[in-house]
């Protein structure tokens, strides 16, 4: 905040609020979450943020906010709510304050004079995004728990794989287990995508490459199906991420085992250059070299991304932001990365998994602890 000359941050995004206050609540459908959302106000001269929450009694399980910093809801999507918030803000930060926000619904723009007497608000994403990059030991603890819950909840799903089982049945097993194990919520509709053998057998795409992730349906699994699995949960405000390739009712063929070995070589090549001080471009170069120059990740996504209060957050590595952007992404000790290279072997589908690691001064520490079965030795 000091660097950007900002006196107050107003945060509306769920993950930004969770990050700034330590509060967590069971996340809701986005339509409702836009309206019934906690809001955080962080001021430069107060160590504690203020939390305005529509979840009474759920305000602060993971935080240590003082009681006088936890307030009832402000409905910033409504003109009446935005105006009332102007009064609250004037008391917290009097005068022509310089403010940064992460979102500007129309009602806040209509209340511009009241909310932003110091001029147009700056972007809070710059302030929060920079802070989020390096995880504290506490944050790593929550992330580890979130990942453990996910891995324990996905094991019975893999055990349930069989011809005739529907994709939604896998979701049923996963959600039941995740909540029983202590998850606060599901953060994305879990993906159990049956991959086509050839790209030409899959949906049309804008780039001619893989269509993934496709939404889960009541499709029944068949023997030999190649499933790309991708899911995550939230725990105490932190997100997990999980990705593996599974086979239905069969063992991998030699060709499929070869896909896995190629994937492992790409992953190992990337991990070999991963350490504090390495750039995102170092990682993409290592992946490309290990794959003979063909891009071994989905071109509409990335080779890797950060993980924290968001299931995908900075740093993003290998996106269409380009090589120059990747060169500027310098890894720091404490950054948590999800690496998700893939191998596509047209005619026999492909292999994709995700590995979560934390970057250290001289390398990395694995956070994922789940087998590659039925692939590998």
């Amino acid at each position, binding site marked *: 905040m000091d660097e950007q000359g900002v006196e107050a941050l107003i945060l509306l995004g769920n993950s930004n609020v969770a990050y700034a206050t330590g509060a967590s609540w069971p996340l809701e459908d*986005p339509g409702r979450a*836009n309206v019934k959302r906690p809001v955080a106000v962080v001021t430069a001269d107060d160590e504690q943020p203020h939390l305005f929450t*529509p979840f009474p009694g759920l305000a602060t399980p993971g935080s240590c906010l003082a009681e006088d910093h936890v307030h009832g809801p402000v409905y910033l999507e409504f003109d009446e709510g935005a105006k009332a918030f102007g009064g609250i803000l004037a008391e917290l930060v009097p005068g022509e304050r310089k403010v940064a926000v992460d979102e500007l619904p129309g009602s806040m723009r209509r209340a511009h004079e009241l909310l932003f007497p110091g001029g147009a608000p700056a972007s809070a994403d710059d302030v929060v995004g920079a802070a989020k990059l390096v995880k504290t030991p506490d944050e790593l603890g929550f992330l580890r728990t979130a990942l453990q819950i996910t891995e324990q909840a996905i094991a019975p799903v893999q055990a349930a794989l069989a011809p005739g089982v529907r994709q939604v049945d896998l979701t049923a097993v996963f959600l039941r287990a995740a909540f029983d194990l202590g998850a606060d919520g599901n953060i994305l509709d879990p993906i159990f995508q049956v991959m086509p053998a050839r790209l030409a057998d899959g949906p049309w795409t804008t780039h001619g490459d893989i269509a993934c992730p496709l939404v889960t349906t009541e499709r029944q699994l068949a023997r030999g199906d190649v499933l790309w699995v991708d899911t995550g949960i939230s725990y105490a405000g932190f997100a997990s991420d999980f990705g593996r390739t599974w086979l239905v009712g069969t063992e991998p063929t030699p060709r499929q085992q070869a896909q896995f070995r190629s994937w492992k070589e790409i992953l190992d090549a990337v991990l070999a250059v991963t350490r504090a001080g390495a750039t995102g471009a170092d990682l993409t170069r290592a992946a490309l070299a290990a794959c003979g120059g063909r891009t071994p990740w989905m071109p509409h996504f990335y080779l890797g991304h950060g993980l924290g209060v968001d299931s995908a957050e900075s740093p993003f590595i290998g996106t269409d932001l380009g090589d120059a952007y990747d060169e500027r992404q310098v890894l720091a000790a404490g950054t948590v990365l999800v690496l998700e290279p893939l191998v596509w072997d047209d005619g026999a589908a492909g292999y994709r998994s995700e590995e979560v690691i934390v970057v250290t001064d001289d390398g990395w520490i694995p956070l994922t602890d789940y087998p590659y079965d039925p692939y590998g030795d």
Partner: protein
Amino acid sequence: MATEVLADDRGLRESRRQRAFAEMEANDIDVLLLGREANARYVSGAPRLWTAGTRPFGPGCVVVRATGAVHLVSTWDEGIPDDIPHEHLFGITWNPGNLLAWLRGIDGMAEARRIGTDSLTPRFAQLFPKVFPSAELVDAEPALQAARRIKTPEEVEAIRASITVAETALAVALSELRPGVSERHLAGVFMEAMARQGVTTPATQRVAWISRRRPHGRGEAGAVGAADLVAFDAGVVAGGYTGELGRTWPAGPAAVDAATRALYRQADDVWSRLLGACEAGTSCHGLLAAYEAAGHPLPPFPIATGLGLGFDVPLVDRHLPLTAGQDRLLPGMVLAVTAHVGGEGPGAVLRKEAVLVTAAGPEVLTTSPHWRP
């Protein structure tokens, strides 16, 4: 639910799009740049990946009034209706430059005088005027809310279907209610039963909580005790539409005494007054007044919200009395209306029903049984 990703039915799509274009015309909006998934779904009819919580604003769907075309960010055509051709799809991008280049190239964009967005960020608030210097940037949410608040007959059917899924899942969760189970277990059972019905996306995720804990009936930490009351507030998102309801059940016979019976009777009283206030043409303030008339304080959360693609206006909450006074109930609105009495000490009884406002009076869409004193 189907065995492949399907676009919303043609009838649903066309009836919604007609309402959206009518509001664009009424509000003199030439182009919509939509970032909110429910708005994008409303005009496109395309299901995209569900994620929980808010998302940062970024235009992922564009509607041009002059051409009648819908353009969408989607890397594939799976689930995309056939009235959105391939050339109107744009692959997922992380690069604002690529996104703006796509927007610039859309037919009808250059001529737009008024461009409506459903939210903004400081960055897009700076960028858009540079990219579209001759256009005025306006808030499109009022127009979209006006379109969406009244449900078409096809939408009411979609909400009914969603409510059926929620009620079936709630019945399964209720069958697991007994002393010793945890709140999270009940949530997990609800989610499992929801997914077995082919719906994998919840509207809310807390699902169940202990609304009264009695010392003599207390179980393990986080577990339901024999004398506890347990509130269920559960919803699902099926085909994009939210179906939800709330019920409160005693954990067992030990939870039932004279005070419990009195709470349930009071909740019934509040509920009947709320239902009486759901008359077309009346102000939403009548819902707030129902609590006062029954002699109960308003709860610290909304007592009515619109149901539709996720959430719709009106939102009736004690923090927004002026808004409630200005909003009118109109035929075709579907509301989730909540009666809530009690609090810490005696415990609370929550009852949430889905109500369709019609010219002939309110129709209660939810049918799940209640515990009766």
